[in-house]
Structure formats: C-alpha cells, structure tokens
C-alpha cells in the first residue's frame, strides 16, 4: 500500500476545438482566475487577448539591456582609446572627437546585449530551465504537442476550489477534467 504524499497542482481540462478553447479562455478570464494557462500544439491568434494577458515586460528589459550595451562599448573605447592608451591613427584625434570610429562597436554591443537580454530575460520570465513540470504526471497532457487543446487552472490560484472550479470547467464545456496531482 502506497502512502506517497501528493500535492494538487490544479485542474486540467480538455477542449474539442480551438473555438471552444478560445471562448473557454474568455470565460476563465472573466471569472477572475489569475494562475492558469492554455496549452495548444500551435499558436492561436488573439489568445493573449482572450486570456486577458497584459503586455509583456520583456521590451523594457531589452531597452535597458541595449542601453547597457551602448554604454559598455562607449566606456570600453573611450577609456582605452582616449584615456589609458591614446592611440593616434591617421592623425585622427585621440579624444571624444573620434567618436565616429567607436560607433560600430557601440552599435554591435547594443545589439548583442539586447539579444542576450531578450533570450535570458524570456527564460527568466517563463521560468526555464526547470527539471520537470507537474503537468507531465497527466497521461493525457502529452497530446498538447499533437492534437490536444487544454486549459489548466492551478491550485495556487486564490479562486481555486476543488468542487467549484470543477463545476465551473464543466459549465464552460470542458471535456475530460482531471485533477493533476504531483509527487512531493
């Protein structure tokens, strides 16, 4: 007899069509749930609006990442070329007046830092990398990368209740509602 302790992750509900899923998402949004997500094998246009997602914070991270790149390159070049080791090339002044020569590096580092901030900022925001996810304990969830359309409302949502959320999901036309439990 197994006595393994389990933790409820949330309800996983399946929908038959993208249209059903889209409208279900609108219902979940309007019901006031915050900790939930949809899983589809392909992007669904307008789903961010249906889910009521606000704009990503990522552009702000990238903006400051880019500015950091510009500044880094400028300081790198100014300090080395005009302060520490003044290098005179083709009779060009080794001062701030040689700024045009530094632009290519400033430009490249802006892009490099922006690209890195985009990638690593995205990974940080979506919580990757991680070893596992509780949803993988569901046998049916594997269909999300083939033909399954899912809504998952997590137990950590303040509005979550074992009975109420299940009734709610049934009410919006969900099929195969499953309580996902994860080993602790």
């Amino acid at each position, binding site marked *: 007899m197994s006595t393994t302790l389990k933790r409820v992750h949330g309800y996983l509900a399946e929908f038959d069509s993208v249209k059903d899923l889209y409208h279900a998402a609108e219902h979940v949004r309007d019901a006031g749930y915050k900790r939930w997500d949809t899983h589809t094998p392909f992007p669904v246009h307008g789903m961010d609006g249906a889910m009521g997602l606000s704009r990503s914070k990522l552009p702000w991270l990238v903006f400051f990442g880019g500015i950091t790149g510009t500044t880094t390159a400028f300081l790198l070049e100014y300090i080395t070329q005009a302060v520490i080791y003044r290098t005179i090339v083709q009779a060009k002044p080794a001062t701030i007046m040689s700024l045009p020569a530094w632009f*290519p590096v400033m430009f490249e580092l802006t892009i490099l830092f922006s690209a890195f901030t985009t990638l690593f900022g995205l990974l940080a925001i979506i919580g990757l990398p991680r070893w596992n996810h509780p949803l993988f304990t569901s046998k049916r969830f594997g269909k999300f990368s083939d033909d399954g359309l899912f809504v998952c409302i997590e137990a950590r949502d303040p509005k979550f209740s074992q009975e109420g959320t299940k009734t709610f999901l049934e009410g919006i036309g969900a099929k195969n509602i499953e309580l996902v439990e994860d080993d602790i």
Partner: protein
Amino acid sequence: MSHHHVSFKDLPEGGEKFEVAKASKMVSTLAGIGGIGLLGSAYFFFSDIASFSYSWLFATFVAFTIVAGGCFWILLHNASNSGWGVTVRRLFENLGMLALPLCVLCLPLLIPDVQTHLWEWMNHHRAAAAEAAHLGNGATTLSVLHHMTVANPHLHVLSEKYGYLNITFWYVRFFFYFAILGFMAWKLRKEFLDQEKDGSMKHTVAARQWSCVMLFPFALTITFAAVDWVMGLDYSWFSTMWGVYIFAGSAWSSMALMLLIVSYLKSIGYLQQVVTDEHYHLMGKLLFTFTVFWAYIAFSQYFLIWYANIPEETRWYLIRNTGNWQVVSILIVLGHFIAPFVLLLSQPRKKNVKMICAVAIWVLLMHFVDLWWNIIPERGPSLGKGVSIPGAWIGDVFAFCAVFGTLGFIYFRTLGKNSLYAWRDPRLMESVNVRN
C-alpha cells in the same frame, strides 16, 4: 478587445468614393498655397534665376523622393504578397500617379539658363561642344574636354566620366525616371481597378509579377535620379551610398505623409471601418524601420568618408560641418534619427493617432531639412557668393509651396475618381480585420 470582426457585408458596395466637397477647405488651402508659391517662384525665376534654380531643385527633388517612395511601397506590398495594407494601398497608388504632374513641374530643370547655375559640369561640356563645333575637322566634345584638361586638371574627371556624364544621356535619363515611376504607378493601379470590374484573382497575380519586374528599374531610378540631380551639383564628389541614402529618406517620408493622409481622410469620415489602429501600428513599425535604416546608411556614408579622409570626398562634409550648417548637421542627427527612434519604440504610441501624426509631421519636416541640407549648401559656393546667401531661403519656401501646393491639390482632385481602397481585392477582409 474593442475589435469586432467586420464582414464583407458591413462594407459599402463599390467601396468608398471621396467627394472633393467634403475636403473643400483642404483643397482650397492647397490651391492657395500652390498659387502663391507659383507666383513667388515666377518672380524669383525672372529676378534671380541663379538662386531660383537651387530653390526649385530642392522643392522638386523633395517631391520626387516622396512620390518615388509612394511607388516603392506599392511595389513592396505587391511583391512581398502582403495582405495587411490592401485598405491603404490605393492611396499610395495615387501618390505614385503624381509622377507625371511632377515631371511637368520639373521641366524648368531642363532650361540651360537654370542648369548653368546648378550643374557646373554642363557648362564645361557646353563650352567643349561649342569649341568642337568651331574647330570642326572631327573634333568631338570628348576630345576637346580632353584637351581642356591641360589648362584645368580638375576637368580630367569629366573626360573620364564622359560615358555616363554627358548632356544627351542626362536628358534621356531625366525622362526615363518619370516614365518608370509613371508607368509602374499607372500599371499597378490599373490592375486593381480592372479587378473591381471582374473580381478576378488574376489581377492580383499580375500586379505581383509586375512589381517584381519593376523593382530593379525602380532601384535604378531612385539611385541615378539622386546622382544626376543632387550628387551632380559637385561633379568631383562621389559616394557609393548616396542612392541608398536618398532611397531610405524617400520611403521614410512617404510613409509619414501616408499616415497624415489616412488620418485626414478618417477625420472627415472616410475609411472608418477599414483602417484601424492596427494599420497605424503596422505603418508606424515601417516608419520606425526606415528611421533606423536611414541612420545606418547616413552614418555609414559619413563614417567611410571621415575615416578615409580623401579631400575630394571630405569637401562635401566640410562645408556642412562648418559655420551655421553644423547646427543643421547636428539637428539632423538628433531630429532625423534619435527623436523618432525613441518616440516610435513603444507600441501604444504607434497606435495613438494623435501621437503618430505628430511624429509623422516631425518626420516630414526632418526629411525636408535633410534634403535642404543636402542641396542648399552648394548654392553659395557654386554661385561665388560665400557660404550662404542672405534671404535666399525665401525663394526656397516659395518653390516648396508651389510644388507641394500644386501636387497636393492634384492629389485630392483626382482622389475621388475611384474607390479609396480596392474594394474587390481578395485580401480585403484580411486587411480590414488585421491583427498584429
């Protein structure tokens, strides 16, 4: 979430017809500006033709870049098989159709008395041609130019460039540019007008094919028009990035103008259902793209010339980076790139009509300043009147009003001939309900 799906039945049969009566204020204002401009320019033409030449070149060339930009956006839209812009494409087509009236406005540039002040190389060529006719005996313009090099070594470059830079070929090219722009605007517009009669997909395919074919002649047109009319002001100066530089500003400014035209038409009650804030966002993104592209090209051109430090190349920047022109140079760096770059970064600002219109006005203004800074610094030195001629800017303003008032008047007068958007285009609904 304010979006609701528009279906074909919601749109008026036959599209929307623009009535001049609804825009009478705008049309009469433009006519007034054009009329005053033409009168003022006529006065300058007869009283000070030397200064007039530069004013007129400036005004017509700015208009040329904007009209060519209109053609470019049609070509790009069709060639890239895009769907989003079907509801605004007709407005670009009408902008491209201004190529022929613009050609008429450019005719003063064909007068030798105007050319003599603008393009010094033509004077040498004409002197050489006259000398050749006088000598007879098999002497040609080229052979005389070659002999003139002995007394004036600067002319060596003219005899070397003779294959391209000769007066006959210059005239041929002049008409070639307008023929190309006029033909592409007419042909592509005609395909979509025919589609409104039979609703056939084949016109969309034909427009796509023609657009791909026309891209190359278009690139030649914008590049060599810039070389002939503006780079030619100083025959010893050259920059291989020049054509791209002009092209970048051209596409940039015509997109800004289109944002203003669309907003104006919406403000008097047109395009309400078919142009949404999503279109503003898309057009704003393209405006942003060309802000960056222009800066990239403008800096690259400056950078290469600054670094190489070859006297015949640096002369161009020297006269623009000294005296009062330096103020304009710095204004262009800040106003042509940094300000629009920062303003156009955020999505909500691109979707805010008032904001994007303010940016578009600024963009147009900066485009004018950019070309003014490209053309006018040659005036003082070329006419032997010092760095700049006091009061000559008045002639620039008159010429500008003449060209833009006239073309704007023609634009709105001809806008009502057809629907404002291609109402039977197979991608119409894709464009109306576009999300991005």
